[in-house]
């Protein structure tokens, strides 16, 4: 049966083929086809891919570099800001201290001035009081003198002609009065 089938097959296919012997027609066709394929792919496609790869690597590396620069810049800015902030803080503290000292100074100043003013006012008041008292005392003396003379004149019923004499008497009287009065006042 097998031989029969084989003979049928052999009758159909005109020649016997040896699979290990290449057909020269196929070698020619295959070579042409493969050369065309190689030419197109190796000339137009893969070099482009290499270029794209290189561009991609470039883009990524450039991006990384840019990011690094930006990062460094940001860090620098941050440091700067931090330094500025610290500076501002010490400055503020200094200003606060200064202001506090100033305020204390001003307070002391004002206090001193107020004390001085009050002292001055008190002094002036006392002085005025003394002056007024003196003038009042002087006025009272002359008044009392006159009143006394008048009273004496009325009592005596005669006008004292000799004023100078009478004044001397009055003055003496008042002085005696004053001496006893002041001695008594002081006591």
């Amino acid at each position: 049966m097998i031989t029969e089938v084989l003979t049928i097959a052999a009758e159909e296919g005109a020649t016997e083929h040896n699979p290990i012997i290449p057909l020269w027609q196929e070698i020619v066709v295959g070579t042409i086809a493969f050369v065309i394929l190689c030419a197109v792919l190796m000339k137009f496609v893969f070099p482009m891919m290499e270029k794209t790869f290189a561009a991609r690597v470039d883009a990524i590396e450039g991006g990384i570099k840019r990011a690094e620069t930006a990062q460094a810049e940001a860090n620098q800015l941050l440091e700067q800001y931090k330094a500025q902030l610290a500076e501002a803080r010490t400055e503020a503290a200094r200003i606060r201290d200064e202001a506090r000292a100033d305020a204390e100074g001003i307070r002391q100043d004002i206090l001193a001035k107020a004390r001085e003013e009050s002292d001055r006012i008190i002094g002036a008041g006392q002085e005025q009081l003394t002056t007024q008292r003196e003038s009042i005392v002087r006025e009272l003396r002359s008044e009392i003198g006159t009143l006394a003379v008048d009273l004496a004149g009325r009592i005596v019923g005669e006008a004292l002609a000799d004023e100078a004499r009478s004044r001397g008497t009055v003055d003496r009287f008042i002085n005696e009065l004053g001496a006893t009065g002041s001695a008594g006042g002081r006591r």
Partner: protein
Amino acid sequence: MIGQSLVLASEVPFPPSVEDFYLPSIVPWNAHDSYWFTKITALLWVSVAAIIIFFLVSYRKPQLVPTKKQWLAESIYGFVRNNIAVDMLGKRGVNFAPYLTTLFVFILVMNFWAIVPLAQISPNSHIAFPAILAVISYVMFIYIGMKHHGGLKYFKHALIPPAPWFILPLLIPIEFFSTFLVRPFSLAVRLFANMFAGHMLLLVFTLGGFAMLNANIWFAPFSLVSWVMTIALTFLEFLVICLQAYVFTVLTASYVQGALADEH
């Protein structure tokens, strides 16, 4: 009964033979001695056209941020470039990446016809095509070796290993045999035989199913098993397709690596 089964068996030729790989030509129609335009060469041209169109279309306007198609094309090239060429040849591998990728894609697509419905035969099951590729690899690694080491010094470098003098008469023929005689044949035959055997296996199980059914209708379950096996073997064939494309490319790169090596 026997006569009837014989008639049916002749309708579905079993067992498959070498002649099943040599189909009648397309132009001129049904000729058995013309090989210029057959199913095999047609598939070859379709493969070449498909690869070229795919790469040209997907890489017409390359962008830094790739589109899906561009990404696919780039990953194919990137796979061979980084995982084969650069891995084995170092920085010089970039120069060989275009050829190695072309080789890889060509073999892959050519092999792939083995499991494409209706095509279902790989042009690589005809030894002519693996032979062309093997000869190119062979010439390439010898040329690169001669260029790298300076003319005939390459052969001295390749043939004379650093060994005691008395062992050299034994080593030199072995080196010559393995490096300059066996390599192209092993490359070509490995690929060819894998695709040939794969096609043969599929034929055996597919035709075997029909043959059993024709022989006796009660064999139908066995036929069914046979066809299920065909499907399973198609998956195995897919593995072989990818593996052989990879192996051929890696071996070519490895030969170039040997030619460029400065020490043994």
